[in-house]
């Protein structure tokens, strides 16, 4: 079914949703911040 194939093609073209060095940097920074918060919270817990 050509219509479905076109839609699937359009959808797959959108992936990956975000792919840039800047996003990776921001994402990993956010990740590290949250892990740090968790770590500090564990200390607080102890």
């Amino acid at each position, binding site marked *: 079914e050509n219509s479905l194939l076109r839609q699937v093609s359009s959808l*797959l073209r959108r992936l*990956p949703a975000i792919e840039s060095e800047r996003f990776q940097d921001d994402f990993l920074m956010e*990740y590290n911040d*949250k892990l740090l*918060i968790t770590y500090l*919270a564990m200390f607080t817990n102890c």
Partner: protein
Amino acid sequence: ASDGIFYYDDVAQAKFQQEKPWANDPHYFKRVKISALALLKMVVHARSGGTIEVMGLMQGKTDGDSIIVMDAFALPVEGTETRVNAQADAYEYMVEYSQTNKLAGRLENVVGWYHSHPGYGCWLSGIDVSTQMLNQQFQEPFLAVVIDPTRTVSAGKVEIGAFRTYPEGYKPPDEPVSEYQTIPLNKIEDFGVHCKQYYALDITYFKSSLDSHLLDLLWNKYWVNTLSSSPLLGNGDYVAGQISDLAEKLEQAENQLAHSRIGGIVPATLQKKKEDEPQLAKITRDSAKITVEQVHGLMSQVIKDILFNSVRQ
């Protein structure tokens, strides 16, 4: 059958108003049923206020020991915690709205007021208690609802509380067990002084068959927005405030421990009252809550990243 709740019986309501069963029992009303429409309107209104408190009124009816909230409308006032009676600015609006409602065929009366506590939890402050006591003196049956739109986003569920105050001088026989919630340090005194002057009602929700259908359609439209949003990014200020508050509480607890005679080595089980949690235990719970919310937010971001960013052509 589920739509039967929407029927308004004029005669029964008038009879109930005459009988006044709440006059003899300060604890008469135990339950609140809020319609999906009223809840949505209140939460959206509260969220639209941002960090400023907003307020509105609720319309509905009573059914035995339940207050049923059918609808809600916003009042053109803000900053309810900054003055003694914020409602006073909106009396004219309230009266005109109620009259117009009756003309439009809405039979329900005003059964309560709601306001928001952005970021500091669902409870009644001193001003709220005095406002509600006044309302309960002259406008019974009346209910106070508090919504925290910031914590709603952070926790992923609606933070809402429904309260009724006790009459002046009344001491409740049993202390009700309420769900623990974090209170910021700058509000803790206001909370503590008045927390015994009111009690919380159980909240349930209901919706009509049409509401269910419309909400399903809305979900189909808005699920993308829901998936795209992240409490980590949207609620950054609130989280920073929470962590700062936690730090202040820790400092306070540390000072108290330093000043206590035994040097702070007092296990929880040796406390006189079992309900009186030591301050450090409360701080631990608060920190766990903040962490869990952050971890949830991070998990959703990581899952979205894996699902949508790791696939390549």
